[in-house]
């Protein structure tokens, strides 16, 4: 297997539970006990109400394709394997995520239902991607 050369996340104290859950193939988001917002990406406090009453909750992993692009020419060498599909998914719980769609571009439509797909890119790191549902 060839070496994985794309950038990898460097988890922070704030985000470590998120990436840890992804490694176990679970999508977990912070949920604010004060205003009931779901939060992505992980924050030190709720960006809606500034509460520190945040708990990790497993969410559905279901959402809709909000927008996407087929990157045919990447701006860095690490993505020289372009084309790839960069996407924004809106989760059923509300937040949007930057992600990749694992599907041929001609099968994609904005607004289509999608489901989470856990991509174990290295033995230590899993990225959160999506497939058509």
């Amino acid at each position, binding site marked *: 297997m060839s070496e994985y050369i794309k950038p990898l996340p460097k988890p922070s104290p704030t985000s470590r539970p998120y990436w840890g859950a992804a490694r176990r193939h679970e999508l977990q988001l912070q949920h604010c006990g004060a205003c009931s917002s779901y939060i992505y990406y992980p924050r030190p406090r709720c960006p809606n109400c500034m509460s520190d009453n945040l708990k990790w909750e497993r969410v559905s992993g279901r959402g809709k394709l909000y927008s996407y692009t087929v990157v045919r020419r990447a701006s860095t060498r690490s993505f020289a394997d372009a084309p790839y599909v*960069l996407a*924004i998914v809106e989760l059923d719980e509300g937040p949007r995520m930057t992600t*990749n769609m694992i599907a041929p571009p001609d099968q994609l439509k904005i607004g289509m239902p999608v489901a989470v797909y856990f991509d174990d890119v290295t033995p230590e790191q899993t990225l959160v991607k999506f497939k058509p549902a």
Partner: protein
Amino acid sequence: MSLKNQAAAIGFAELKPLKDAPPDLTPLMLMARLTADAIADAGLAKSDIDGFLVGMPSAEPGFIYPASAAEVLGINPRMLNVVDIGGASPAGMIWRAAAAIQAGMCSAVLCIVADLNRVGDQRVPVISVQREFESPYGNIGANCGYAMIAHRHMYEYGTTPQQMAKVAVDQRKSALKNPLAAFGDKPLTIDDVLNSRMIVDPLHLFEIVSPCSGGSAVIVASPEVAKRAKNPPVWILGAGEYSNHSSITYAPSLTESPIKPAADAAFKMAGVDRKDVDLICPYDCYTITVLVTLEDAGFCKKGQGGPFAAEHDLSYAGDFPCNTHGGQLSFGQPGLGGGMSHVVEGVRQLMGRGEGRQVKDAALAYVNGNGGIMSEQVSLILERRS
């Protein structure tokens, strides 16, 4: 209290962007030339410059930058700062200069940007959250974000590739009359744009700005200093700024940008209507950026940017002059000098120095600066009084 009529642009300098980055050039060499040229253009002496706002050159960045750059240039400022709001930095400098002048901190501010196109493969974001949640998925550089905005705009409003391409085509018409435009040598058709290589669907090569080397400078001065300037003063009538995201994924909307609050604030301060504006200079890193700006700055209804561009002649000779220097798409993007090109063109036209592309009787201009992925917005209203 507002910034209305508190300061004026009285001189500028602008270099023709170079497509390469000559090894014997540095950003500070360009800044030295621009400083000398802008001061001469305004008819001032170097000792008149007592404020210094500078953009951080990507080719030669550094901490505590303003004092070191000012020292090289021999300027002793009473106010100095880097303005770091991406492509909106130059427009942001203009109102910050006016605010410092209004506050009595200084009287003639040099707003200056220069850079060399040496970014190469180093487009790795330095914002830690972007490194963690964007880069691993390949959301690197600006192309992807704008492509997803364009795609969503097509989905929500039926905007077409032809309508987007029309922006680049009309701006090229003006660039043909701009000797400083890096891409101003031959006309462009809608077919040329749509037949150029697809880079990030739905954006083609000719809808995407080209990084260049170069720079520009504008001097903003108090009414007292403006009286002894060589050029007719171009007054800052209104300004507004707004930001509501960094990555486009976390913006409240992909298609409704923070331009609206910035533009509304600028027009309210200026006390003028959209219909009074003689030309607009909206930031144009991509064709879609101009359509969204037309909508959110209030020149057409939301979602109607595409049909508006298709129905109007946006060239200097047209019924709705827009980016009469060719925009960055045809002028080139010498780092932050891309964003300054919109300010300079607004000032140039209002001073009546548009030469072969002069907009007749231009008295009022709208300028917009845009940073990141529609992240930071600065709107300016500029006026020349008869």
